[in-house]
Each structure stands twice: as structure tokens, then as C-alpha cells.
């Protein structure tokens, strides 16, 4: 069985290589992003790391006009949910520099640029 240890550190390490680290059930192949010990589809408990291309298509997003603590100095940014390319999986991240909805139509392409300890999974438009 996989342990929950260090999974976030490994996710961050992969993000800094512009990849997304997911967990793949060795029994049914189901992909999950979260730290998992049992598969939500088949309940099996063996997983392998699956490094996915850090790119995808915007499903939805918001532009945070009022930023929460820790993001006050981030300028105008979007929090984005995207479908990860070539995988049945969604992820979300921080996309700086987005001022208006016309800057980021649903369906636009984004890619991972790294992980910032202050702002999380960093994205840019591609």
C-alpha cells in the first residue's frame, strides 16, 4: 500500500519540473490527483506514480478582484480549473496577469510553470 507520506512534496517537485504528479491505480488504471490510499473506483490499494504533461485546457476560472491573505501582492490573477492533457483528470492552479475575462476564454490552453511556496501551482497561458 502507498503511504500518505511526502506525497505533496513529490507533487511540488514534479510541478517544478513542469509536470503534474497523479496516482494511478495498478488494478483498474483510474487516475487521482489527491493523496489516496484506496481507489475510488475499485477500492484497490496499490498505486503507482503517474507523471502527466503539465498542460491542459481551461474548464472554468475566476479572476480574484479581492485577494485572500498571502495573495494581496499578486496583482490581477485567475484561479483556474483545467482538464489535464491526455488524461481523465482535472487540476487547478494560479495564473498571474489575467485582468479581464476576455484574456482567458474557457477552452484556452494553459501549462504548469512551477510551484511557488506562496502562490501554489503556477500556470501560464500557452
Amino acid at each position, binding site marked *: 500500500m502507498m503511504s500518505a507520506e511526502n506525497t505533496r512534496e513529490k507533487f511540488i517537485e514534479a510541478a517544478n519540473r513542469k509536470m503534474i504528479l497523479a496516482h494511478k491505480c495498478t488494478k483498474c488504471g483510474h487516475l487521482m490527483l489527491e493523496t489516496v490510499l484506496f481507489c475510488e473506483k475499485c477500492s484497490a490499494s496499490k498505486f503507482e506514480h503517474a507523471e502527466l504533461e503539465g498542460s491542459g485546457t481551461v474548464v*472554468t476560472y475566476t479572476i480574484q478582484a479581492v485577494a*485572500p*491573505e*498571502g495573495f494581496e501582492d499578486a496583482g490581477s490573477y485567475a484561479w483556474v*480549473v483545467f482538464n489535464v492533457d491526455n488524461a481523465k483528470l482535472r487540476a487547478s492552479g*494560479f495564473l498571474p496577469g489575467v485582468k479581464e475575462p476576455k484574456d482567458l476564454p*474557457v477552452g484556452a490552453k494553459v501549462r504548469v510553470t512551477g510551484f511557488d511556496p506562496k502562490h501554489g501551482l503556477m500556470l501560464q497561458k500557452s
Partner: protein
Amino acid sequence: MTSKVCVLGAGSTKYGKLNESIIEIALNAAKDAIESAGITPKEIQAGYISNVFGVADKQVHMAPVIMSNLGISHVPGLTIESACGSGSVMFREAFANVAAGFYDCVLALGVEKVTHTGTVHSTTLFSYCSDFFYEGGNGASFPGLFASMARAYMTTHKATEEDLAHVAVKNHENGMFNPKAHVHKKITVDDVLKSPVVASPLKLLDCCPFSDGASAVILCSEDFAKKSGRPYMEIIGSGRGASPAAVQGREDITTIPSTVAAARQAYKMAGVTAKDINFAEVHDCFTIAEIIDIEDLGFFPKGKAAHAVRDGATRLNGEIPINPSGGLKSKGHPIGATGVGQVVEVYEQFTGKAGQRTVPNAEIALTHNFGATGASAAVHIFKKVDRK
């Protein structure tokens, strides 16, 4: 086989910015509920308390403190947290314990006090209710998370920002008739559209306020209620549901699976359908939430609620009045209390205490309350009991 459970008394503080301590706020609601039920604290056999951010007023482990202050320190209490859905989730546990026969009479009380921490810090505290590593930690506030759901809904169902604004206008209109509401202000669609953007496409008047407040009800067995000689209502349906904690984990971002599951259970238990409900109190933390809720609860087909709201179907005189209390949007949202406050509204409606916001001839009502973006939810259905 479970026993019938009734709501015998109910009380609330005003919702808004309150100066009292969190315990004083809780006790004021408890006193109202106890007096409303015509009982003494000595008749309470257990206390169920819902609260999220007691730590912000230097008090956790709240149940025994409240019990002690009611003069019943020997009565066991339990404090329950489930983000903004804490009140209804706690109510469900109180209901289940009476239904199972463990107790004949219990206090169910929700309380919150956050406004003293200021808007920015409250926003941050609330973001801890998200799946923080993926959401709050990447810069999404709660308005931001619901804004992402709004954009998904608007993209899929061709709804507009103006459609969402009609929810706010209607709930503020109802709240004008609620003396305990946080916000007493009539607004127009134009006011909503011109209010400052918080997280696009949601604007300030699409968002509920941060509120302090407490609500409490007395739950009891049917025998206890009958013997009291007081007005009461019966809980005929109760359901719980869950969704992936993070928005990104949901296949369809325009629906909340926990609501659908909880409603299905509650309708089945009550032996009714959405068509039998005379009015509903639903979780409208943001205007988009009410649109999604009333579809997930079965009042309108998927993608049709926005237009129904615009056409007046959810107003006090509409085909299915939604949030006659003013909802979270106008009545306010003291998150630990909100789910209980909805039950208080049903009790006041059924016992002739709702004044100008009364839904005429209502016999069956539904409450719906969820935590975070709907990661947890509870739905309850109530039936008015005619004592004639």
C-alpha cells in the same frame, strides 16, 4: 424502526455584527428556544452544538460551556463542525439520536462569531474550509470558488450575470420582512450589476455577508411534543450527502452531488417529491448557489432555474417560494448557525410567527444547507402538525 421526531420550540438572535461573546450569543438563542418550547433546561437530555470558528473568539469545546451556562452541566454535549453546513449536519445528528430513542428532548444550537476578525481575515479563515492545497493555497477565496462554478454554469446553460442578480434582489426583498435579518436593504438588478467585482463573475451583491449569530431548536419525541400542549412540527425526511472536497474533482461543476444525494434520501424517507414542497430554505451563500440548489433539489430541470428565478417563480407569491427568510444573502450567514436558522424559519412559518413573509397555507417545507462548495450537505423535510 425509528420513532417520529418533532421540533417543539425555536429561537434566534438577530444576525449581523454582534458585540456579545460567542457564548453569550449562543445562550440568547438557547433561552429563546427553551421558552418557545415551554420547557425548562432540566428537561434537556443532551446538547448538540454546531460551530466552526470558535477559536476566533477564544472558545472551542463549546458544548459543555453552553450546558454549564444553562445550569445543566451534567447534560452531555457534542460540538460538530462541517464548515457552512455545520448547522444542518448537527441537526441531523440530534434528529438521529432522538429517532433512535436515546433521548426524548435535546437542544440543537448553532452559533458563530467572526465579524470582529475583519473581512480580510474572515475570508482567509473561510478559505481553510476548502481543499486548501488545491484551492485556497492557489489563491481561490470562497467567492472565487463559487465564481468558478458560476462561470461553468453560465457557459453551459447560457445564463447571464443579470439572471444571477435576480436571486439577490428577491432575497433582499424577503429579508425586508425579517426583523432578525442582517441586511435590510431593497436592491435592484442594476445595483447588483454595478456593485464592485469580488471574484468575476460574482460581484459584492452576489455574495452573502459575514455574520455573527445563533439559532436554536428543541427536538423531541412525538409523545413529548403531544404532552407539551404547544405547537410543533414533525421532521418527516432527513438526508445527508457528500461530494469531492475540491471543485476540480467533480465531473460536472454545475451540480452539487451532495445536495442531490441528500435530497433523494430525504424525499424517499418523507414519501414526498419536490412537487409536494410548499417552500424551501436553501443555501444561497452566493447567488449562483441558489440557482444550482433549486435544480439539484428537483424544483426545476437542469439549466432552467435561472430563467425561472427571473420570471418570479421563486418569489413569496411564486410557484415555489425560495428563502422566504431572506436566505443567507439577506438574513445573513453565521456559518455554524445557518442550518439551524433555516429550521427556525420553518417553525416560525408553521406557527404563525413569520409576519409579512408568511407563505400562505404551507404544510410541507424543506431545508437545505451545505458545507464549503458542497462537500457535505444535509436536507430536511418538515410537516406542519395541526393541533385542532
